[in-house]
């Protein structure tokens, strides 16, 4: 079956714009993670969902970042009033439990 998909694959935003990044998990996967990966760095944890419940949002860098997964399937990461330091690859990973992660291809965000 299809793997984790993310859209858009590339996004260019002007500083101050709001963006929304989408993650479509593998069917049946209850766990969903969001990560931010800056150039030359490893993925940095942002938030974790188990079904529709956001169990850990300790990695969200500011209140401009918001994630939701209202029906326990598709998730959206929203960044308000984007800043240049938000430029990164945003990765989504899903799994049957919190111990397994299948990664999506990522969304590359560039804030000008």
């Amino acid at each position, binding site marked *: 079956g299809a*793997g984790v998909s993310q859209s858009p694959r590339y996004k260019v935003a002007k500083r101050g714009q709001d963006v929304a990044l989408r993650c479509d998990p593998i069917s049946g996967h209850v766990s969903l*993670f969001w*990560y931010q990966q800056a150039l*030359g*760095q*490893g*993925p*940095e*944890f942002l938030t*974790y969902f*188990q079904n529709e419940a956001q*169990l*850990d949002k*300790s*990695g969200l860098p500011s209140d401009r970042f918001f994630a939701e997964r209202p029906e326990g399937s598709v998730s959206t990461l929203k960044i308000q009033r984007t800043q240049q330091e938000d430029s990164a690859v945003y*990765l989504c*990973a899903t799994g049957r439990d*919190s*111990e*397994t*992660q*299948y*990664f*999506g*291809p*990522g969304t590359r965000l560039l804030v000008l």
Partner: protein
Amino acid sequence: AQRVTQPEKLLSVFKGAPVELKCNYSYSGSPELFWYVQYSRQRLQLLLRHISRESIKGFTADLNKGETSFHLKKPFAQEEDSAMYYCALSGSSSGTYKYIFGTGTRLKVLA
């Protein structure tokens, strides 16, 4: 502080030579350790995890709690092993879902 350290940004070895990718961690609970790999133009994928104690593509990794290390080893490197490797830890056994990744080591296997 909770941290995963991969001291080498780049490791170059010749085909057939042994490989060791270093990973040290700092964590106050009982972490679970993983190695992830990203081949060129592919997505990040799990290579192995310490609790399963398995060998994948000839790679092994042993958790050394005394040295807080989880080095990745392979006795004979192949060209197709060239990739980016990330060490990661999870605190799920301690009740947190946060994963911490290292900065990665790029392995180049030369012909």
